[in-house]
């Protein structure tokens, strides 16, 4: 298992009660697998099934494999402007 660290913001940070969570997953884990694991955490059930996941500031697609050394962040719908 490999440790993945995920930044959380705004409403998602409130749902999971933290601005950063750590999750152990197989080293080959995809975005979809990380999101599934987040949704099984306490408070995670209210996360949408396809939230915006950023890896090093770029959006990753569901099937994309994650780099455990990259900066991962789960982003609620953008509300700037």
């Amino acid at each position: 298992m490999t440790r993945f660290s995920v930044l959380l913001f705004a409403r998602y940070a409130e749902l999971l009660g933290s601005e950063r969570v750590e999750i152990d997953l197989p080293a080959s884990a995809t975005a979809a697998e990380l999101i599934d694991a987040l949704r099984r955490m306490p408070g995670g059930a209210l996360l949408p099934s396809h939230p915006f996941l950023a890896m090093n500031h770029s959006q990753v697609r569901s099937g994309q494999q994650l780099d455990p050394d990259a900066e991962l962040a789960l982003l609620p719908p953008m509300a700037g402007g």
Partner: protein
Amino acid sequence: MAFLQRDPLELEPLVHDISAPTNGAVATFAGIVRDHHAGRGVVGLSYSAYEPMAEAICRQIVIEAEQQFDARVGLVHRLGEVAIGEAAVLVAAVAAHRGPAFDAVRWVIDAVKSRVPIWKRERYADGSEAWVDPTAVAGVVPAGIPG
């Protein structure tokens, strides 16, 4: 240049930084905090951001706009508490002619709204608060979180 700022935003320095004597047109946009949203009275709000990504995306938006419209573009977004009537975001574009200046400003504000990781928490007149979700169905008030 920083695209995110906690102090009140000012249009004049933003325009000054991108002006040149060859340019004949300056178009600007300011998004202002309103006293209501989805039918509820708003008494205040605060913006937060995934700051390094937001800075990077703002820079990318400016680069894309300048290439696409043959204009120079300025952009700054407020973070933290913003009072009613204050600007949340400023966009300016300077170009030889007005068409590209208008087009650039409009494109940039649309891009900011859809691409920059910034979130808005509103405080309502009834004491409740909520994160604003622009993707929610129009007219549906976001679930309130007791303030």
